[in-house]
């Protein structure tokens, strides 16, 4: 049912400066203080220059249609520029010219219409001051009673309350209806593998060589000078046919060499490093940004996203910022050819927390 039966009264006061608008009907839920501010009515109507001066009016008219013509010009120019400055090769310069000239045309087209319309409205259309009274939101008593009556009648005619078996079976059907969607959406998750498993393990395994990113060349312990930072991937990552980026996103490691005397190692982790060489996951434990801003003298690792800082000399414990857990350490050793190898996978899931993280 429409609420038109209770519309407020529009008050026009273009030519009378004293008439305060009268309110019709109830004020709805508005709070009206008794000692409140009194509505002073309209300011005296002030005619615009275009109302009084015919030549000014002409000029405003000219401005408005010039703006609309400019808009047409802009639209045509945008089409022409699209053809005159084609993006044919991979030349970045061509893209730039095309974007700029098409954009200028489209801007002119839209702004011409916009500014023209506003200028028209402001300077040429009639300008009486008026008030649209806000309508109360609630309906009249009769409207409300009518609505209740409609529902009651519908209930009686359909027997919704009376035929409870039918009603309850309908409610049951509606409740079961969304279940296929839940199952189908679950099917979008990785198949055959539990997400928890996927998040808990990386490509690192016992004996996997540490290799340079991006070339995949294995790294010898003797290659690393003190103060170095090597960006490391597991050897064989580049040969993966599927999921190379997914594996890299989990297995990325930063390898650093400190003076062995500067490392404060826990007794159970002393065998995880080699002569001052340590390897830590590059994935921040906060929300998974790559942490690689390494300062070689302070041994701080800074995450660029939220400024978490990790102290490499103390097992990458968090010394500042929102991260809650230290970066996972990759236990490393040296094989008989002198290459750095992983002793095992990471001993905990890398990256940010997730629900079932143990």
């Amino acid at each position, binding site marked *: 049912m429409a609420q038109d039966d209770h519309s407020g009264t529009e008050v026009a006061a273009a030519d009378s400066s004293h008439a305060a608008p009268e309110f019709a009907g109830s004020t709805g839920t508005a709070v009206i203080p008794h000692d409140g501010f009194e509505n002073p009515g309209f300011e005296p109507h002030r005619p615009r*220059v275009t109302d009084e001066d015919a030549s000014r009016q002409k000029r405003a008219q000219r401005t408005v249609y010039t703006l609309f013509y400019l808009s047409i010009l802009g639209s045509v120019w945008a089409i022409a520029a699209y053809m005159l400055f084609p993006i044919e090769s991979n030349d970045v*310069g061509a893209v*730039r010219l095309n974007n700029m000239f098409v954009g200028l045309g489209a801007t002119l087209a839209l702004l011409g219409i916009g500014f023209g319309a506003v200028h028209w409205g*402001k300077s040429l259309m009639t300008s009486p001051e008026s008030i649209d009274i806000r309508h109360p939101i609630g309906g009249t008593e009769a409207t409300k009673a009518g609505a209740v009556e409609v529902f009651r009648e519908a209930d009686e005619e359909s027997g919704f309350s009376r035929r409870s078996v039918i009603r309850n079976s309908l409610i049951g059907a509606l409740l079961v209806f969304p279940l296929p969607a839940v199952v189908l959406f679950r099917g979008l998750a990785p198949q055959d593998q539990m997400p928890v498993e996927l998040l808990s393990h990386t490509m690192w395994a016992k004996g996997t060589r540490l290799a340079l990113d991006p070339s995949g060349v294995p790294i010898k312990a003797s290659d*690393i000078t003190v*103060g*170095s930072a090597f*960006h490391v991937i597991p050897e064989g990552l580049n040969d993966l046919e599927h999921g190379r980026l997914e594996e890299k996103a989990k297995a990325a490691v930063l390898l650093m060499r400190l003076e062995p005397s500067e490392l404060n190692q826990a007794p159970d982790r002393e065998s995880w490093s080699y002569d001052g060489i340590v390897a830590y996951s590059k994935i921040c434990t906060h929300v998974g940004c790559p942490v690689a*801003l390494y300062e*070689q003298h302070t041994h701080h690792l800074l995450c660029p996203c939220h400024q978490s800082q990790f102290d490499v000399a103390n097992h990458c414990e968090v010394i500042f910022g929102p991260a809650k857990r230290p970066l996972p350490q990759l236990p490393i050793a040296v094989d008989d050819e002198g290459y750095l190898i992983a002793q095992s996978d990471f001993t905990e899931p890398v990256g940010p927390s997730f629900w079932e993280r143990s």
Partner: protein
Amino acid sequence: MNRSKRRTGRRSPLATVALLALGLVFTGGAYAALSTGTAAQAEVDPNSQETIEQGKKLFQANCATCHGLSAQGTDNGPSLIGVGAASVDFQVGTGRMPMQMQGPQAQQKPPQFTDEQVKQLAYYVASLGPGPDIPADHLVNGGGDAANGAELFRINCAMCHNVAGAGGALTEGKFAPPLNDVSGVHIYEAMVTGPQNMPVFNDLNISPEDKRDVITYLQYVQDNRSPGGFELGSIGPVAEGLFIWIFGLGAIVAITVWITAKSN
């Protein structure tokens, strides 16, 4: 009276201007000639005894206070034995050393020594112990593969120096400086020696050819500015956000005021 004096005087009133102009041109020209002269005669023999003697004198006069009389290091400065000529050429050649004051990071400033003196200092320090040498010209003149350099830069450098080399903040007042207008030699030397808190990237991590590619990439970025219009310093979302907050919202506020203001 003035007028007659001037007319009878020896000099025309324009003479002063002409003389000043001449003097300026002369000094400017001489300065230009001299400064290119020093760059041209920077050929310093790394092995000659004279170079090392000169370097030693410069070292003892300018560096020994902090680094010790024979570069063995003191409480105020590290030992320089074994840092190599590359390290000295970088630190002194970019004006970071001699350091103005102790702080989180040595600040770049106009170099305090001529190119020749920098080289003498560098070879003196190199004579104390083996270390990375100043790189050869063909590695630093930017004749490499910019695409390969870009990939290496993104993996190894961009997290601190910004993907366009615009620099960025580190912890506790330290920062990675912008790499625009840094010469190829100094970029190479920084990678090899790891000045201050920058990690070392030795030749087995990034090979000399790869370093040349990285330098080529940086020069490419400098020569081919942003294709997307204003770069706003290439420092990413902060600058861009600030720009749109001030100018974009400013324009919207201005237009709103115009739309709602009553016409004259």
